[in-house]
């Protein structure tokens, strides 16, 4: 039996609670196992990013809870939550969001520094990661000197650096041309298959959806479809 990485229960997020309540998420149950390559799709405003933010501990739910590897992160506050994110969750953002004043190498090393890893380990890990994303020759380049695809590959390497439980990628291909998007998906696919790294994407991009091994469809803050095996879907939809 595979290890459960994410267990979200009855997640609800209401914006403008006191005026006109808007349900960004409305009672979502989600169960993600180790090694999944899952795409969350849905129209704009369906709640994809909100769901990812809840799973990533970047936002708090109005109701429900999220458990990561057995830890209820909804109950974590301030420094504890930040520390949890640092050691357990990798993020890839739509706009890459690399630190512009750091080189590709430093952007990756930065996370390891935050984790207080020793210099030799950092050097080895950053080299490995740059090789995995095929950017050894760009190590000393700053983000502004890299193409969008290259920046996103650095972002993936950065997300992988702390050896997280899973990687959340919010529309990772949205700003990329088809070749760059395809290269990026190849890298992530390879990492998933060879190293069993769990990826969860929010996306509109059919190329991502086509490569995903599980596709969850959100509409109006609710899961309306899930291609996972029935056992998982039951857990996801809360059915027992």
């Amino acid at each position: 039996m595979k290890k459960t990485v994410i267990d979200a229960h009855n997640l609800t997020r209401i914006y403008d609670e006191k005026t006109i309540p808007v349900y960004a998420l409305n009672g979502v149950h989600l169960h993600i196992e180790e090694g999944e390559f899952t795409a969350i799709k849905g129209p704009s405003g369906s709640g994809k990013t909100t769901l990812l933010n809840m799973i990533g501990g970047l936002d708090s739910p109005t109701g429900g809870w999220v458990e990561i590897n057995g830890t209820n992160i909804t109950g974590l506050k301030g420094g504890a939550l930040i520390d949890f994110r640092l050691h357990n969750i990798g993020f890839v953002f739509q706009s890459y969001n690399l630190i512009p004043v750091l080189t590709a190498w430093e952007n990756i090393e930065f996370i390891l520094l935050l984790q207080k890893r020793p210099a030799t380990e950092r050097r080895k890990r950053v080299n490995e990661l740059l090789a995995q994303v095929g950017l050894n020759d760009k190590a000393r380049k700053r983000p502004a000197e890299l193409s969008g695809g290259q920046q996103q590959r650095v972002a993936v390497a950065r997300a992988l650096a702390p050896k997280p439980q899973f990687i959340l990628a919010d529309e990772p291909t949205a700003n990329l041309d088809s070749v760059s998007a395809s290269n990026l998906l190849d890298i992530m696919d390879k990492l998933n298959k060879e190293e069993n790294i769990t990826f969860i994407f929010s996306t509109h991009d059919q190329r991502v959806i086509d490569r995903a091994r599980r596709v969850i469809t959100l509409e109006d803050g609710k899961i309306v479809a899930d291609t996972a095996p029935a056992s998982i879907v039951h857990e996801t939809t809360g059915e027992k």
Partner: protein
Amino acid sequence: MLLKIAWRNTWRNKKRSLIIIAAVTAGLATGIFLMAFYNGMVEERVKAAVSGEISHIQLHHPSFRSDYDADFFLDNGREKLNRIRKLPDVKWATGRVVLRGMIASAYGSSGITINGIHPGEEDRITGLSAKIMEGRYFNGEKPNELIIGEKLLKKLKLSRGHKAVISFQDTAGNIESAAFRICAVYKTANTPYDESNVFVPISDLDTLAGLPGQFNEIAVLLHASGQLETVQNTLKGEMPGTEIMNWKEIAPELGLTVTVAEQMVYIFMVIILLALAFGIVNTMLMAVLERKREIGVLLALGMNRARVFNMILAETLFLIAAGCPGGMGIAFAAIAITHRTGINLSKFADVYASFGYSPVNYPSLAPGQLLTILLLVVFTAFLSALYPAWKAIRLKPAASIRK
């Protein structure tokens, strides 16, 4: 890495950073130089007062200074004077007969302090002969000669060679008067002093006052001001029953001037740094607001709020630190040059003199003040960083990244 990010962030918007660095440079240079200028002004005032008017230490009968009664003279004044002159830290000492009285001419009269002096000895203390602008110093050839301040001379509509009548109370309480011929006119940088002090040879005054061979004041000049308390304590130990006061006690208003000046220079500095702080807060706030998304990402990735705070603090420190060498360099160069050449403000000599200040200023800065400035600068950086850093750590990662 945090410092590296902060340093590089400082130079992301070069133009903006350079403007604030230039402001820090100019502010600091102005502030430090102003401090040195003020120091120079006060130092000159103190130097003039100590070496030209009151000397470092004065000895009196304990009751003398309450009403300047001639009867309160120093017992064994000459012996005391000789003992004082033997002390190694003492440059010179002289005895005086000091009386309060009146000076009168055909046109008017004025209250004055009559200083009966030993001409040669006094000159080694106050350098009175060098302050004579018209006439000659006492040469002992003629009796009853008087040296008068220029301001008083004009007030009484007198001229050199004229006679003026001086009246005072002798030791028996009788009013004594004598005519003195003006042999010289002096001028110091302290107009009020010139207006209220006249000098006569002690030999022409002591007998009239009923104090033949006596002093009611001994003035002591030291080799260095740093020896003040040591010599004062030594004298107190050796001469009980004598009032022994240093210049700060004799002229508390002068001591107060120094204290106020010390406070004023820091107030100037704080005002300048406070004005700079607003500029820095504005710059750093812009830097934070422009980088909301980036800071949100840092928080999302696991950089805790303390580190974000420190990063903004470091950026602010770098911004100020970058302006410090220039500001200090300009200030020190200006101080070094003007300390040697002096700043001549003779154009405003009358204004300065009316407050007892020299029109020539030699700016100077004490090492302790430099340390205080550095601490103030660091404090300003910290203060300026607080609000922008607080804004940064209050950012919500999810909302910031979405921006």
